[in-house]
């Protein structure tokens, strides 16, 4: 074979995958679990912050009301311990000056159902007030064009918040692996992220059942198309176990201003509703379990069968909580839902 072309990746693989791909008699690849980080708490909190007047009677989200909604959600999320006096104080519990912060948005659904621009701007504002330099904040998804179609303006360089897709900076050359997954990671994650803030949307997904916090991490790998069989299970859980993902993930703010209960992931206006809410949690599994329930409620209201009956229940959520993954809690008894 032509050895030259492969030298770089081979060296890497020697370092990273030695002993990793233990293909046993069963034939299934098994990579060892990384050192556990962020082990799930005994119980998890999910804040559902809603504002029926979020759009002020119009079609678009009102930026001020969005900022207020975000503040309410963040204060509630940290209210259990020493309640923060201000929203900025709440943010300071997650980040500290000098860190690089990235906001992983979801823009597949175009303007119809993507992470809301006003939400992103409100978060960037609070991060800067908490001491983060604007240039150290990156708002990103897989593809810059997709971001533009969702209403984001691409911005690279200068002392401002950075907006661009992985297509502008590439994926890492080398593979990382966990369980069933072997992928290259976005360089935005590996090079521009000390703290990852996950900003998915709340919607139905024809393959996975629902797409919320955990599935949004498919946007950090180069080959998500390989991980859609079997309702994305266990692949979604495995992607979230990649040490580079797990160790950086601090917070999920799920944009449910517009949500979809059927027909996802592309935008289908007939199956969408204006929920005017944010779901916020530090536990992505608890957030997904909660979001799934909201989607099921809406399906029932509209006469749709459950995802279970449709044979596309999101089993990956339970997998993410199992003993091998321990990414969070999906048992309802361990999830405290706070509505504000």
């Amino acid at each position, binding site marked *: *074979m*032509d*050895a*030259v*072309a*492969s*030298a*770089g*990746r*081979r060296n890497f*693989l*020697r370092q990273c*995958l*030695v*002993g*990793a*791909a*233990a*293909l046993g008699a*069963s*034939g*299934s*690849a098994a990579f060892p679990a990384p050192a556990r980080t962020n082990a799930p708490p005994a119980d998890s909190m999910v804040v559902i912050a809603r504002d029926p007047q979020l759009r002020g009677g119009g079609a678009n989200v009102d930026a001020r009301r969005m900022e207020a909604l975000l503040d309410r959600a963040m204060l509630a999320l940290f209210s259990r311990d020493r309640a923060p006096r201000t929203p900025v104080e709440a943010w300071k519990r997650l980040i500290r000056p000098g860190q690089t912060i990235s906001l992983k948005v979801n823009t*597949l*659904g175009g303007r119809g159902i993507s992470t809301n621009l006003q939400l992103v701007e409100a978060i960037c504002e609070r991060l800067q007030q908490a001491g983060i330099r604007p240039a150290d904040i990156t708002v990103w998804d897989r*593809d810059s*064009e997709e971001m533009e179609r969702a209403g984001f303006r691409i911005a690279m360089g200068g002392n401002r918040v950075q907006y661009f897709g992985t*297509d*502008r*900076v*590439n*994926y890492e*050359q080398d*593979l990382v*692996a966990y369980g069933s997954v*072997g992928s290259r990671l976005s360089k935005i994650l590996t090079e521009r992220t000390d703290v990852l803030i996950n900003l998915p949307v709340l919607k139905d997904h*024809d*393959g996975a059942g629902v797409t919320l916090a955990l599935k949004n991490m498919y946007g950090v790998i*180069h*080959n998500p*198309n*390989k991980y*859609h*069989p079997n309702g994305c299970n266990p692949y979604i859980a495995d992607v979230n176990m990649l040490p580079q993902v797990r160790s950086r993930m601090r917070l999920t703010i799920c944009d449910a201003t517009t949500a979809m209960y059927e*027909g*996802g*992931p*592309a935008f*289908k206006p007939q199956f969408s509703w204006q929920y005017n809410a944010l779901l916020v949690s530090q536990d992505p599994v608890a957030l997904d379990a909660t979001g799934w329930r909201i989607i099921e409620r809406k399906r029932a209201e509209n006469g749709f069968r459950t995802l279970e009956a449709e044979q596309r229940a999101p089993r990956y959520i339970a997998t993410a909580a199992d003993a091998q993954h321990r990414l969070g809690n999906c048992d309802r008894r361990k999830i405290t839902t706070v509505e504000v």
Partner: protein
Amino acid sequence: MHAKVDRERDAPASPGGTAHVQSPEMADAPRLLDRRSFLMCALASGAALSTGEFTSSLGAQPIFSGEQGQANEQFTVEARFYEKQKEKRIKCKLCPRECVVGDKERGYCGVRENRGGTYYSLVHSRVCAAHVDPIEKKPLFHFLPGTTAFSIATAGCNVNCKFCQNWDISQVRPEQVPAQYAPPQRVAELARQYNCPAIAYTYSEPVVFSEYLMDTADAGHQAGVRSVVISNGYIQEEPLKAAYGKMDAVKIDLKAYSDSFYRDVVAGELKPVLNTLVTLRKMGKWTEIVYLVVPTLNDGDAEFRGLAQWIKTNLGADVPLHFTQFHPDYLLKNLPITPVPTLERAKAIADAEGLHYVYIGNVPGHPAQNTYCPQCRRMLVERVGFTAGKMLIRKDGNCPFCRHPIPGIWRA
């Protein structure tokens, strides 16, 4: 573009190599593959096309092409094999996976995208690897020995073999690998310019670029250039007939003779591949089979015997079968290189079952790389590395010693 291996072939520093068709500014937007690009790269690497004695010295590291957007329309054509469904969904009918793909999503192979309920191939004329290879490297041993094939690939694959040697083009999306615009007529012209009697579709998985393969085969035939495909055979019958019906020879990688290996190591299925082989046989296509022997996973006597018996019963004893040596790569780094005695054991079993042309591959200098007359046992084609040395088969395709007919396509 990348210096590439034919999947499952692995012969480091072998004599008889590959000329790389590559542009020096390849990280930029894709451009037309041209003779000048080829020469610059081939000469820069000290490549000597005429002797085939160059090595793979181009530093073709995988480079992400940041300039190349997903929406690059010159590479986008409507897919030929799919059905429309409700809610803008489609069902792909190209390979047995039958992906049901929602709007704005892609199939498993990553190179086909649903845009508003119409399914598109994103890799027409989007060549990410191009080389002039000896035909023996494919390997096709009974097809124009001693000639070269103008070999091309696009990104993408419809399976995910854990041992893939070309995973950096097969397991990526088209926009993640540098590519050049190589329309069918241009490929045919270049093949002629480089005295290649055949175009080979290879390296990644040609099933997933079947529209491009079909158009290029037509252009090649119009220019007097044949076509061969190196494939996993994981394809539905209708596209198989339509696409591989245009081929002059086919090499199928039969990854194992067990369902569990296909499920766990390949992420595919055995049965459709066996069906493909039977259909090719009925179509009268010249077909050779490669079986990569992976230590501990598909190297049992019973599997070798079952495979040989199945081939003899369903395809006949004259189908060449190549047992090739595995080298650790991609997600199977923990297994050793296949020991030569294992390959010899596989060959001995297949010989004993009555197959006439059983070869050992990826082991330079092994006598089982040569072709012998099954009747008089004399050597008819001698191979050293990827080059055919002696070629004694008569013009009429018979053994020069005993006149036994030797199946294959021997003369251009």
